[in-house]
C-alpha cells in the first residue's frame, strides 16, 4: 500500500460523524458497541431498496431474481472475506447472538449428552455464555470456564488442563469486548482439534479489526455481526464447517428452509438455506457486503495499525491521569481500552464525557461474570474504528480530566 493512511478522507465518508453533540465535535469512541456506516453502505442499501427489492429464492419475476442475485452476491462476498471454502458455509443470521444460539440449539442439543463439557473463557460476553447455559440445562452438559491472568490474557495452561475426554466444545471470544485481549485463537483451536473437540469463535469484536481467515484459524464455527463491521444492524453471519452444518438439524422451521412439505412431514433444503427460515434481511446482507468492500479497500492491516496507534496513545495518556485504572493490559490487544476513575462511577463518567461530545460505553458490557471477577460494577470503555483520530483521543483524555475536576 503506497498511499498513507488518510483518516480525514476516511471521515468524510461517514456522514454521521460530521455533527456536533452538546455543542462539541462528536468523538465517536463506542465502536465496540456499534460502528457507523460509510456512505458506500448507505448507498448500497438505498440502491437495493430503490431498484432491486423483492423476496428472494421465490418468484420467477425479474425483481425477485435481482434481489436473489444481490443477496447471494453478498453471501459470496462474506465467503471471500472469511476465506471460507464454500458459500454453503455462510449462514445469514440476525447477528452474533443469533449465530451462537443457532449452534447451541442445533448442534448443542443434538450432540451434547449428560456429563459432556463445554469450555468457555472468563472473558465471554453474555452471548457466548447464556446460550450454552441453556444448552447445558436441556442436555445435562456442563460449562467449564478457562481462567484469565490479571492482565486479561487467557491462562493457556489452565485452558489446556480443562480439555478432557468429556469436552465436546470450546467456545471463545476472538477479542474481548471488555479488556481488549486478542486471544491466540489459532493455538486455542489447534489444541481443541488435536483432541477432536469442536470449536466456535465469537468474532464480534475482531472481524472489523484484523483479517480473519477461518481456514487458517481452522475453527468449526465463527460468528459475527454486521453492525460491528460498518454495516447495518439486524444481520450477521454464522460460518460453519460444511460437514458439521450438514449433520446438524434445522433450528427454525418455515419457508425457504424446506425442500418438500406435506401435512405429515417435511424435508430440508440444502445448505445454507436449511438454517435460513423465513424472509431474510436482504438489504442488510447487501449493506454488509458493501461494508466489506469498503473496509478491504482501506486495507485491514492498515486499519489495524491505525487503531493500534490510537490504543497506544489512549493507554499512555489515560495512565497519566491520577486515579485512572486501565482494565486489560494484555500484550496483544485490539482497539479497546476499559478503565475506571477513582471516585467517579462509570455512568457519571459517561454522562460527563457525552457532555464533552465524547461517546463511550459505560456499564458491564454484557459481561457480568467478568465484572464480578474484576470486582467492578462497571467500567468506562473507549473503542476505536478506522475513522477515529489522535485529536479525538485527546478530547477523551481532556474530558476524563474534567470529570475528575467535577467529582474529586
Amino acid at each position, binding site marked *: 500500500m503506497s498511499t498513507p493512511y488518510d483518516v480525514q478522507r476516511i471521515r468524510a465518508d461517514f456522514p454521521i460523524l460530521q455533527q456536533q453533540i*452538546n455543542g462539541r465535535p462528536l468523538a465517536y469512541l463506542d465502536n465496540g458497541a456499534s460502528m457507523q456506516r460509510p456512505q458506500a453502505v448507505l448507498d448500497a442499501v438505498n440502491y437495493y431498496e430503490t431498484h432491486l427489492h423483492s423476496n428472494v429464492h421465490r418468484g420467477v419475476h425479474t425483481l425477485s431474481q435481482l434481489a436473489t442475485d444481490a443477496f447471494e452476491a453478498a453471501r459470496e462476498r462474506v465467503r471471500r472475506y472469511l476465506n471460507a471454502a464454500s458459500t454453503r458455509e455462510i449462514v445469514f443470521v440476525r447477528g452474533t447472538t443469533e449465530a451462537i444460539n443457532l449452534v447451541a440449539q442445533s448442534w448443542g442439543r443434538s450432540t451434547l449428552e449428560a456429563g459432556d463439557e463445554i469450555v468457555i473463557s472468563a472473558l465471554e460476553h453474555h452471548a457466548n455464555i447464556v446460550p450454552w447455559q441453556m444448552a447445558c440445562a436441556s442436555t445435562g452438559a456442563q460449562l467449564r470456564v478457562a481462567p484469565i491472568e490479571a492482565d486479561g490474557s487467557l491462562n493457556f495452561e489452565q485452558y489446556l488442563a480443562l480439555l478432557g475426554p468429556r469436552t465436546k466444545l470450546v467456545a471463545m471470544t476472538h477479542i474481548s469486548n471488555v479488556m481488549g485481549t486478542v486471544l491466540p485463537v489459532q493455538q486455542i483451536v489447534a489444541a481443541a482439534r488435536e483432541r477432536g473437540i469442536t470449536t466456535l469463535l465469537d468474532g464480534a469484536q475482531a472481524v472489523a479489526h484484523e483479517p480473519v481467515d477461518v481456514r487458517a484459524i481452522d475453527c468449526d464455527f465463527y460468528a459475527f455481526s454486521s453492525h460491528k463491521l460498518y454495516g447495518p444492524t439486524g444481520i450477521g453471519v454464522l460460518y460453519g464447517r460444511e460437514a458439521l452444518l450438514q449433520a446438524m438439524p434445522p433450528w427454525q422451521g418455515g419457508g425457504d428452509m424446506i425442500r418438500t412439505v406435506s401435512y405429515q412431514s417435511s424435508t430440508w433444503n440444502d445448505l445454507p438455506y436449511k438454517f435460513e427460515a423465513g424472509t431474510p434481511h436482504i438489504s442488510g446482507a447487501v449493506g454488509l457486503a458493501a461494508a466489506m468492500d469498503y473496509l478491504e479497500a482501506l486495507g485491514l492491516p492498515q486499519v489495524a495499525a491505525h487503531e493500534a496507534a490510537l490504543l497506544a496513545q489512549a493507554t499512555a495518556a489515560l495512565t497519566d491521569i491520577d486515579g485512572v485504572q486501565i482494565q486489560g493490559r494484555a500484550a496483544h490487544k485490539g482497539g479497546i481500552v476499559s478503565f475506571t476513575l477513582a*471516585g*467517579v*462511577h*462509570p*455512568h*457519571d463518567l459517561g*454522562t*460527563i464525557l457525552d*457532555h464533552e461530545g465524547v461517546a463511550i460505553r*459505560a*456499564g*458491564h458490557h454484557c459481561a*457480568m461474570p467478568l*465484572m464480578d471477577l474484576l470486582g467492578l*460494577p*462497571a467500567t468506562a470503555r473507549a473503542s476505536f474504528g478506522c475513522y477515529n483520530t489522535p485529536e479525538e483521543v485527546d478530547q477523551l483524555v481532556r474530558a476524563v480530566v474534567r470529570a475528575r475536576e*467535577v*467529582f474529586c
Partner: protein
Amino acid sequence: MELNELYREVILDHNRHPRNFGRLDPADALANGHNPLCGDKLTVTLSLQGDVISDLKFDGNGCAISVASASLMTEAVKGRDRGSVSAMFDKVHALLTQADAPSADLGKLAALSGVREFPARVKCASLCWHTLNAALANADAAGTAAVSTE
C-alpha cells in the same frame, strides 16, 4: 442541558458523603434494588413504629445520581408515615419525569430536578424509592424482596 444542573453541589456532596449509609440490624424490613442496565445495586433497611419510618439506612453502589438520591431520600422520609412517604414518592417521580413539576415542598430533593434532562438517568434516581416501597411492602411479613427498575 447543563452538566451542573445534573451534578448540583447537593448531589455531589451526598455522593461523596452519603447520609444514613449502612444497614440497620435488626431491621423490621429489608429490600434489595437492582438496575440491571447499569449494575446499580442498593439495599434499604428500615424500622417502623406503627405507621412511621422511625429509622432507615441504605447501602450499595451506584452512580452519583443513584447514591445521592438514596441519601437524600433517607433524610427526607425518616420520621414520616407511610401515607406521606407515598405522596412524596409521587412528587419525586413527577420531578424526575415532568417539566414544570412543583418542587416547593420537596426541600433538598428538589436538587434532583436536573435529572429529567437526562432520561437515561431517571432510573438511577428512582431506584431507591422503588426499593423503599418494596421494603415497606415487606414490612408486615418482615420479609425481603428484590426490585428491579428494568
